[in-house]
């Protein structure tokens, strides 16, 4: 269809609602007798609670109670553990179940009152004493005790070998060997983790800020020991998650527990400071990368050894080296991950877990190798271009990375780059150009959706997936409108409700590729049902035709052979006196478990997205302030579903990467293990004044193997490669190689 709306840069269907404040987030559901919870968090890194004195707090009129391990209900140990069906972030620390403390900032109590202000005041009056124990606070002194886990999240292998990396490295004519470090990063979504919980008898209604409505729903039923039918969980709008809301954190279940305690609905939103301890983070990483090449730049050996950290109550391993296993054609490779347990809150996925920090180390190392080889960094990458997945030994479903390099180089003006570091000037400023490869797996998993066509010509889509702020409502509306041949104004997509059929969780950039095909299939089934009715109906112009020759067109169904022959949906349904026709469709395709009865295309190919990131920086030669002047990204992400939302995802990812490269960093007090940069005045993210001119482009070639929609996910790939491109550009501008993020100015000063 040439007048397809999919792909068009339409405005967000919920844009107006959001801008005008009409979109309701989890802590924005006014209800009768709503009580407010304020969380109280631990101020030691390890030990026990010795005493909790709540008397002063409970004396305040309007305070309903203080929930802690002393009066809390028992929770059931959550089964499962796959984020799609619900994962509690800290399996060995169900909230408020004991007096034990595993990290500073752990949620240990909640004060509940009739106003937020009173709850806050009450929380400050709760007197807690501790019996502290010696905590393990830093990776470096404990690195020698690091464990070497076999697998990480989703059974991803954490130790990968091919050939003999050590021997090949020892024999390589040109080698580099450097260690790159990244600090703890925090997601800091604009909307904090927030929940409103309301019991009616033994039924529970939860408004939650989650990236997995289905998962959070089943997890809550699981932990509270309820039948799933007794729980309804809703997340209509989510103010960002970036991975921090993929697992469930204490706020959700504790809101339900608090509500039970006081017999009123309870709203519980984390304070910004609490977002730094009990809502996930990215692990600190220490990554050693060794590369060996021949004199023409052909890679002979890659070694990427990472040390990361996790808490004592769950294990999330930042998979730094996963992209390294497939990015370049190289016969000898060794990727390892080690992990140290610390008394810090548990890390979790954060925008491109692994690839973000991993591509920083690998792509900075490639730049160092290019310098050593006196080779153009793009030429080095082309010399090692992987035409098939070198680890899985399967062809890629679609890879147009060469074009990404070419277009990006042209857009940034790569040919004007003087190879010599610190050689280019613009007025006072040193000028530098850097580039890096971007990559992220193209994930797809099973999804179910319902399409409903009403007699008045409107359609609704229902699916229990969620729009975490990325534009899911909009692109799903476009997909459904095309499949039904309706204008987008006639299509309403409803998401974020556990009463709807199960859709994919928002993790691994998979929603578009997973839910889009299900919605399309459901819509096509509706059209099929209508066609069947029409051919059997003597009143229809399509009577007697073969239903397979009928297709949706212009808000109705028409013969594909005779495009004028047919009728509108409205005409057909009203003649048949039907209010609605609906269909439920499941697309059971998973690139994540490709062997288990999946279509051949899925089994035989490796699915990834690609891109090239180019950065131009201006660096003050005395003060070492860095200004990103231009950022170019050329992305190969399959079909672009909406130019606007796609550009916006890549831009957001790059801004994340710029922050990661230049300023973001969570610092823990060395003596106490308490985060000291725990608000947005001290955890710096880029502001508008830091923004470069962005030039974001897409190859826009559908990946027909991943789904009939041809789109691969786009939420995470934008951050990958960006930090390396920035670091490489700063090296080119100054001749200084900083291998420790963020590259704050003191690291560049002599």
């Amino acid at each position, binding site marked *: 269809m040439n007048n397809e709306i999919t792909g068009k840069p339409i405005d967000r269907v919920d844009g107006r609602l959001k801008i005008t404040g009409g979109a309701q987030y989890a802590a924005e559901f006014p209800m009768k007798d709503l009580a407010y919870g304020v969380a109280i968090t631990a101020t030691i890194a390890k030990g026990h609670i010795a005493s909790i004195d709540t008397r002063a707090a409970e004396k305040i009129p309007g305070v309903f109670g203080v929930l802690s391990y002393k009066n809390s209900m028992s929770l059931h140990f959550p089964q499962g553990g796959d984020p799609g069906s619900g994962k509690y972030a800290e399996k060995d620390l169900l909230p408020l179940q004991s007096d034990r403390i595993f990290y500073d900032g752990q949620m240990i109590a909640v004060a509940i009152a009739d106003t937020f202000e009173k709850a806050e005041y009450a929380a400050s009056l709760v007197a807690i004493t501790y019996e502290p124990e010696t905590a393990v606070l830093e990776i470096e002194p404990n690195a020698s005790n690091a464990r070497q886990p076999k697998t990480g999240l989703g059974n991803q292998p954490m130790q990968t070998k091919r050939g003999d990396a050590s021997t090949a490295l020892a024999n390589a004519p040109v080698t580099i060997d450097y260690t790159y470090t990244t600090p703890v990063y925090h997601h800091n979504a604009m909307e904090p983790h927030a929940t409103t919980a309301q019991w009616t008898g033994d039924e529970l209604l939860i408004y939650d800020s989650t990236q997995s409505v289905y998962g959070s729903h089943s997890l809550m039923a699981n932990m509270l020991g309820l039948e799933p039918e007794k729980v309804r969980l809703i997340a209509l709008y989510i103010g960002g998650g970036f991975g921090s809301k993929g697992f469930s954190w204490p706020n959700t279940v504790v809101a339900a527990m608090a509500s039970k305690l006081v017999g009123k609905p309870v709203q519980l939103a984390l304070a910004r400071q609490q977002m730094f301890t009990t809502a996930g983070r990215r692990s600190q990483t220490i990554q050693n990368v060794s590369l060996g090449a021949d004199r023409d730049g052909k890679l002979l050996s890659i070694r990427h050894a990472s040390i990361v950290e996790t808490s004592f109550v769950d294990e999330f391993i930042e998979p730094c080296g996963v992209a390294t296993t497939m990015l370049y054609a190289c016969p000898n490779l060794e990727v390892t991950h080690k992990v140290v347990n610390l008394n810090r809150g548990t890390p979790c996925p954060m925008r491109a877990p692994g690839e973000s920090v991993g591509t920083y180390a690998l792509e900075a190392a490639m730049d160092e190798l290019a310098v050593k080889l006196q080779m153009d960094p793009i030429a080095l990458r082309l010399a090692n271009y992987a035409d098939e997945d070198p680890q899985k030994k399967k062809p890629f479903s679609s890879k147009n990375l060469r074009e990404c390099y070419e277009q990006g180089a042209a857009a940034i003006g790569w040919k004007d780059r003087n190879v010599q570091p610190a050689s280019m000037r613009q007025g006072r400023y040193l000028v530098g150009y850097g580039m890096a490869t971007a990559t992220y797996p193209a994930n797809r998993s099973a999804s179910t959706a319902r399409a409903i066509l009403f007699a008045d010509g409107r359609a609704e889509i229902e699916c229990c997936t969620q729009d975490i702020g990325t534009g899911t409502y909009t692109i799903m509306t476009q997909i459904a409108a095309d499949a039904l041949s309706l204008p987008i104004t006639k299509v309403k997509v409803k998401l974020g409700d556990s009463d709807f059929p199960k859709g994919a969780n928002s993790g691994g950039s998979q929603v578009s590729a997973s839910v889009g095909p299900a919605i399309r299939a459901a819509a096509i089934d509706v059209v099929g049902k209508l066609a069947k009715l029409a051919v059997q109906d003597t009143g229809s112009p399509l009577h007697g035709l073969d239903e397979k020759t009928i297709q949706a067109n212009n808000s109705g169904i028409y013969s594909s052979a005779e495009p004028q022959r047919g009728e509108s949906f409205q005409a057909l349904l009203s003649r048949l006196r039907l209010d609605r026709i609906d269909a439920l469709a499941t697309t059971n395709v998973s690139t994540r478990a490709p062997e288990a009865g999946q279509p051949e295309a899925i089994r035989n190919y490796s699915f990834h997205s690609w891109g090239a990131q180019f950065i131009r920086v201006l660096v003050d030669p005395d003060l070492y302030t860095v200004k990103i002047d231009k950022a170019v990204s050329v992305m190969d992400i399959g079909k672009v579903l909406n130019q606007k939302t796609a550009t916006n995802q890549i831009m957001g990812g790059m801004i994340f990467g710029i922050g990661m490269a*230049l300023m973001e960093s969570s610092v823990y007090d060395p003596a106490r293990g308490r985060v000291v940069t725990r608000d947005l005045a001290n955890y710096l993210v880029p502001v508008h004044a830091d923004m470069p001119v962005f030039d974001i482009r897409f190859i826009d070639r559908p990946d027909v193997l991943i789904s009939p929609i041809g789109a691969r996910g786009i939420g995470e790939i934008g951050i990958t490669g960006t930090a390396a491109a920035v670091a490489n550009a700063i090296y080119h501008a100054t001749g200084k190689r900083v291998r420790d993020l963020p590259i704050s*100015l003191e690291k560049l000063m002599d």
Partner: protein
Amino acid sequence: MYPFTLIRPESPAAAIKNATKGTKFIAGGTNLVDLMKLDIETPTALVDINGLEAFNTIETLPDGRIRVGALVKNSALAWHSEIARRFPLLSQALLSGASPQLRNMATTGGNMLQRTRCYYFYDPAFPCNKRVPGSGCPAIDGYNRNHAVLGTSEHCIASHPSDMCVALAAIDPRVMLHGPRGERSIAFAELHRLPGSTPHLENTLLPGELITAIELPSLPFAVHSHYLKVRDRASYEFALASAAVALDIQGGTIRAARIALGGVGTKPWRSKAAEKTLVGAAAGDATYKIAADAALNGAIPHKHNAFKIELAKRTLVRTLNIVGGNA
């Protein structure tokens, strides 16, 4: 936040009368309310001075001095045409601070009395000599990147965060006060205290005393001035180092100089030592470097802020060059 009562006096006299022990004046509230939310400030009552219209004007006096009321908003002061023309360094300092929304709320009086951004001061779970006298200073052996290198003591190394005050330190206005014992004025340089052994005492105001205005001297050479702020991002962030400079250069020789530094001092840091090296010297990079060394003489680094010494020098040299016409 602790409960408090709100008092809205209609005259300065009533404001002062209500400013009894445990109360606080509130102007823009952009610093005080944040600190109250974190239980760092726990006033029993707020005396809201925003109704005192008389303090909301900017007036040029016959002798050329400019009187700026304590309630004049940072944005109004920055964009005031005479301020922008006669005191570029002040206008630039104000506009480099916070964000437009905050500057539209923040006042001249409140800006001068804003409190440090030391991470530990902001977190009641930590001890802090400034917050709880005698409890200790975790910053000295902890994370001290945004801390001071000048004017520190073994009890406190917190930096003064204001940009406006750095420009004022260079200009050295009179600070007009009104308190239970009547009106008086002090030099700006006398307003802020060094931490010494009493870091909780930050200024020399007497109990219940209200800042009513500041009076900028007619300092004609301040037309040749500049404020430069160096920070981790381009906007909406406090200074790692900043410099306010005014120079009177005639025929290549410096006749008079005003130098103040930000981000590095425990109070807005005027450097008379640097000024002294400049006066009578030939304008130029060599002179400026000597001044910068003098300004940072005696600076004490800590683990994470040692770079500020060199950064402040370079910032000052750059600013001198800008005012001197070489950059």
